[in-house]
Structures are given as structure tokens and as C-alpha cells.
């Protein structure tokens, strides 16, 4: 007889938990919300990157499952309310969430909306930015109530720059889009070039003039236009694309006039997560996500997962559900969280950016991870990525 004894966790409450506080019968609820602000706009260049209904939320659901599993041993129960908004409705939705007593809000929005929501929240809630990469949000426009879980433009640019300099591909041909977020990323690449001793031989703007994008036989046009567009650049080792708006970068590889690799917004892409990442125990994490969501994990999912894990980790370590206690701990030097990146992730006290390794990815694989070990730092190798303490423009 195939006999199975399933021991229910409910039975655990009665047992002694020496290292962990004795539970009350009723678990305490730790509430949070995930507010995703969708911009109306064109679909992405590649249909492989079409947004999904559950983008970001799927990562949040996994985090709540993870937090709840631990919470069962701690007498804690976690919840994340999922809200989809537009830029126009986002502020009202945020007010509604705060009105319900929620003091942790994971925000998946662009730079201006994230900043506006942080101001709207004020000291009523902690905002966990899980999408916006703008350097101004960590600099002149930084807000004390915001923790940046998503890496900044400066961090991803530095992560790529370290690798390219290690390769001795120091001459960069920078092509940037004509949207404000493209300019922000381009500036991050310019800064990274100076910081790590690379040289931008030319900067060229790819104007977004509309256009057919993914039409029938669009590739014929791309094959003719991209070589011409990239013609007559000074001698360079690599083409760097700054295209946050997703207008042209994906068209660049193999279509440049000179036979040069492409990096940045396509080709070798610096990012926080990639579904092929298998290092540091990530395989089982990818498996768990795919089982839950029925698709592969994207950056928005990873960042939302990590944001909610930060709350869960704080609740476990502090053995508290008090939002004020958790906030103080998350912003303290004692806090760290594991995120399948091979080392502990911590929050910078000067701009509340989460320190994290940056993955350098090709289409199918993770090619490298920065920081590259050759770049040293007096306090943390992770602080070779992004805006360091002495250069920050943030003052809380």
C-alpha cells in the first residue's frame, strides 16, 4: 500500500520555535500592492517581447508564495494587491491603495510616472521602483520614500562598459534614439566611457519618424536602410545602441555598414534578468516561475519578485509586521536580500538604489556578469556600477 503522510503546516503552530518567536494562532497580515502603469504605445519590434497580461504580476505572485512559505514558520501572511493603471489614473489608484492601509507599493511605471507617484505617496508609503531606470530618479530627483529595485541606466551602462574595456573594445560608435529616455541612456554610456577609459568616436541620432515597423517585407527595407544609416562612421570596435523606446536597436545586428558587434539595447544587452540564467541556483527559481506563470521570466517579473522579497526578508529578519519597523530596517546598513545573483544585495544609503550584479546577455544566453573582477572598489565591487557616493546628486 502506497502510504503517504502529509504533515500539515497548521500543525506546526503548537511546536516550540526556539530561535523564532512563538506564534499567535492567527498569522499577522503584511499587505502590499503592485501598481503597473501601462503606457499606450506601439508593440515592441520583436513579437517575442509582446507584453503579457500578467507582466510583473507573475513575479509578484511568486514572491508572495515564497514569502508565505517562510511566513508559515513566522506567523506571517503576505498579500500583494495587483492594480493596472494608465498614467492618468495612476495617482488615484495609488491614493486608493494607501487609503486601504497599504504602505508598500511596488511601482512598474516609466520615469516621470514613477517620480510623480513617489511624490504623491509622500511619507504615507514606501515606493519600490521595479521598472524605471532613469538616473535622475536616483540623482537630482531622488526621493527618500523610494527604493530602486530596478538597476539604473548608469548601472547597466557601467556593467557593459566594464566588459567592453576588458575586451579592449574601447572605441564606441554610439547610436541613440530621439526619445527622452534614449537620451538618458546615451548620457549613461557617455559617462561610462569616461569612467572606464573608452572613447565615443561618434554619436548619431536615429530619428523616430514613425514607419512601418513589423510590416510584411519590412526586413527588405531594414536590410537596405540600416547599412546606409551606419555608413561613414569613424573607426570603431563596437556599435552601442541607446534605444529605450525600442525603435531601431533590434534592427542593427548584422545590418551595420562595418562588420562590428552591437551592444546596449540589442546584441549584447546589459539587464537585471534573463530567462536562460542558470548560475547561483537560478535554475530552480526559473522552474518555479515557469510552473506558476506558464511562461519565461522577464526583467519586470524579476524586479517585482525582488521588491516583494525585500519586504518578506525584512519581515522575517525583524520578526515584525509593523511597516515602520520594516521600512527602517530595509533602509538600514544591516539589511540584505538574496536574489539569485551569487551575492547579497543591499541598498545604497545615498540614493536608495539596490546594489546588484548586471547580466550581459545575448539572445540565448548570459555571456558575462559585471562587475568584472578586474575593477576594484574600496568598499564593494558592486559600487563600481552606477553612481557612487562621492558623485551622487541626491540629497534626501
Amino acid at each position, binding site marked *: 500500500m*502506497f*502510504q*503517504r*503522510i*502529509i*504533515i*500539515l*503546516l497548521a*500543525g*506546526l503552530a503548537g*511546536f*516550540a*520555535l*526556539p*530561535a*523564532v518567536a512563538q506564534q499567535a494562532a492567527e498569522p499577522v497580515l503584511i499587505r502590499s500592492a503592485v501598481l503597473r502603469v501601462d503606457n499606450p504605445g506601439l508593440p515592441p519590434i520583436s513579437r517575442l517581447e509582446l507584453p503579457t497580461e500578467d507582466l510583473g504580476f507573475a513575479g509578484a505572485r511568486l514572491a508572495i508564495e*515564497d514569502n508565505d*512559505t*517562510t511566513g*508559515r*514558520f513566522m506567523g506571517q501572511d503576505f498579500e500583494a494587491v495587483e492594480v493596472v493603471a494608465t498614467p492618468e489614473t495612476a495617482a488615484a489608484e495609488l491614493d486608493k491603495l494607501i487609503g486601504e492601509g497599504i504602505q508598500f507599493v511596488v511601482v512598474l511605471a516609466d520615469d516621470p510616472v514613477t517620480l510623480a507617484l513617489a511624490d504623491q505617496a509622500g511619507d504615507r508609503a514606501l515606493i519600490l521602483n521595479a521598472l524605471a531606470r532613469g538616473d535622475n530618479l536616483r540623482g537630482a530627483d531622488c526621493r527618500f520614500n523610494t527604493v530602486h529595485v530596478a538597476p539604473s541606466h548608469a548601472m547597466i551602462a557601467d556593467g557593459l562598459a566594464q566588459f567592453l574595456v576588458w575586451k579592449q573594445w574601447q572605441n564606441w560608435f554610439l547610436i541613440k534614439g530621439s526619445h527622452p529616455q534614449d537620451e538618458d541612456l546615451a548620457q549613461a554610456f557617455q559617462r561610462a566611457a569616461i569612467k572606464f577609459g573608452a572613447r565615443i568616436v561618434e554619436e548619431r541620432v536615429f530619428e523616430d519618424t514613425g514607419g512601418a515597423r513589423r510590416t510584411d517585407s519590412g526586413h527588405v527595407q531594414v536590410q537596405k536602410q540600416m547599412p546606409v544609416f551606419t555608413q561613414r562612421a569613424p573607426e570603431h570596435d563596437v556599435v552601442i545602441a541607446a534605444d529605450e523606446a525600442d525603435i531601431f536597436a533590434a534592427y542593427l545586428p548584422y545590418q551595420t555598414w562595418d562588420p562590428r558587434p552591437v551592444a546596449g539595447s540589442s546584441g549584447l544587452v546589459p539587464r537585471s534578468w534573463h530567462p536562460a540564467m542558470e548560475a547561483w*541556483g537560478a535554475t*530552480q*527559481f526559473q*522552474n*518555479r516561475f515557469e*510552473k506558476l506563470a506558464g511562461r519565461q521570466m522577464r526583467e519586470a517579473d524579476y524586479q517585482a519578485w525582488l521588491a516583494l*522579497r525585500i519586504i518578506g526578508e525584512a519581515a*522575517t*529578519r525583524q520578526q515584525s509586521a509593523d511597516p515602520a519597523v520594516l521600512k527602517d530596517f530595509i533602509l538600514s546598513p544591516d539589511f*540584505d*536580500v*538574496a536574489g539569485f545573483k*551569487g*551575492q*547579497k544585495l543591499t541598498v545604497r544609503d545615498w540614493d536608495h538604489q539596490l546594489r546588484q550584479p548586471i547580466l550581459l546577455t545575448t539572445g540565448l544566453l548570459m555571456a558575462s556578469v559585471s562587475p568584472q*573582477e578586474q575593477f576594484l572598489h574600496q568598499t*564593494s*565591487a*558592486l559600487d563600481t556600477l552606477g553612481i557612487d557616493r562621492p558623485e551622487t546628486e541626491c540629497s534626501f
Partner: protein
Amino acid sequence: MKHALVLTLCLAASPALANRVFVTNEKGNDVTVIDSETMEVIGSYPAGNRPRGITISPDGKELYVCASDDDLVRVFNPETMEETHTLPSGPDPELFVLHPSGNPLYIANEDDNLVTVVDTQTHKVLAEIPVGVEPEGMGVSPDGKYVINTSETTNMAHFIDTESFEIVANVLVDSRPRFAQYNDAGTKLYVTSEIGGTVSVIDPATQQITTKIGFDIPGVLPEAIQPVGARVTADGKTVFVALGPANRVAVIDGETDEVIDYLLVGQRVWQLGFSPDQKYLFTTNGNSNDVSVIDVAAREVIKSIPVGQQPWGVVVAPN
């Protein structure tokens, strides 16, 4: 008569008894077998998909391998390396530990937040015990009364009563606990934390952390120090801890809990296994695809042996 003769010849040729060393190769999907006397590879044998945890019965007759991507435990005849049968393991088995008597087997199911208990004789699942997120490390107390499971994302060591199959205590440790190892006297439990970079020394009687051992290696970034596998000598006086990408094995005084030395081994050292006489300690080095051999008394690395792709676990036959 013939047997006796062979035995005599063997003894004359080698005062040290040769044992077979078994190494799982996570990416190679096989087990490399090494002769512990000649330190040469005898051969490599298929072991299912993504073999990781490996252990052997106390009588040396059954070799158990966690075939993680097959969702089962494969059992081999250690002499012939032929698969004799499989055991149900629950999904994604990663590490396991045998009861000191040789039965049952306690298996960590990494993807399902469970510890599965399997009878090695009847091949039946005796229990499934819900634990924290990503269970990995499995240790057993020398008296067999408690099994310890570490959960990597929950960051706890769970004490499981082996009679009732219930969790009786949870100890919060540093980030990503990977491995749990008692000393033979049962007076200390060592739990390694990969991301925390520490080893928690737990008093099993009180289930309290008495010491946290940290590591500091000149010229090695603190982030690269990631404690994983651990083994304690039979006298409890020396503890060896594999430090992952630091490419070192730490040597710790089992009485004072102080780090005595760091031994340079291959790259990304994961798990450790003693020879039965504890003269040698074998380390699996996942990134350099080799096994380092440590002379335990001299505390020196004496050899490295190339094995398969991404060596993960190691066990040495008791006879």
C-alpha cells in the same frame, strides 16, 4: 582458497585500502569513479539527468544519486555501476541524507518545498514534510533522531523529528543556507550560508546559534566567499568548509570555532567527502571540472583529478 590468495596479494601491495570515490557531474549526466589508492579515474557511467546529491549505504552495497531533472533517485550497484532500481523522490531532488542505519532516505525537493522520506527497502514514500522555500541541505543527527533541512530562500534550518516526521524547531540563519552537518558526538551542528558568507554553529540541544564563523581571505573579494559543503573529522576537532567561488576549503578548529587555514583547491568548490579512514578529503570543483584531494593530517592539497562536466557531489565507498 583463490580468494584468500588474492586478498593477501592486495594487502601486501597496498597497506592503505583502496576505495571507490564517486563524483556526480551535474552537466555531464554521469558519475566519475576514482580509485582512492591510485587516485586515477576508473571510468564514468551514465547517471540520469542532472545528477547532484550522491550517497552510499553504510554496507557499501547501494549507491544513491539524485537525478534532479528525472525527478527520482537512481540506485546503482557501486561495483558494476549498473542501475539496479530507482526510488521515488518527489520533484527535483537535490540533496539527501541516509538515516545512520541506512534506512530511510531523506530527500530535499528543491522545487516543491518538501522533504520526502523514502524507505530504501520497500521503495515506498513514507512521508512528505512541507518545509521552507528551496529546501537543499540535509543533515542527520548521529543518533538518527533528527533530520535537519535547510531552506535556501526561507533561510532556516528545520529540525525534523524522524519518528513523527514533524518539524520541531526552526532556526533562522544567514542567507541561502546550503548544507547541514553534525559532528559525530552530536554536540554541534554546522549550517553553511552561501550568500551570508558564514557558518552558523548551532547547539542541537537548545537549537540556538552559539557562534557564527566568518571568513576573510586576503586577495579574495568577500562576495566570492560562499560556504557550501562541510565535513567534520570523527574526533570533531577539524571542520572543513568548501567556499565555492573563493576556490578554497576553510579549515576550522572544531573546538574553538576559529578558522585555522584556507586550502587552495579547484574552481567553485561545492561538496566534500572523506575517505573512510579520513586520511583524504575529496572536493568537487564545478568550474574547473576536477576533484582536489586534500591530505587531512597535513592539511595540504596533494592532487587534482580531472572528472566530468561540472562535478557536484562526492561520496567514498565505506569498503
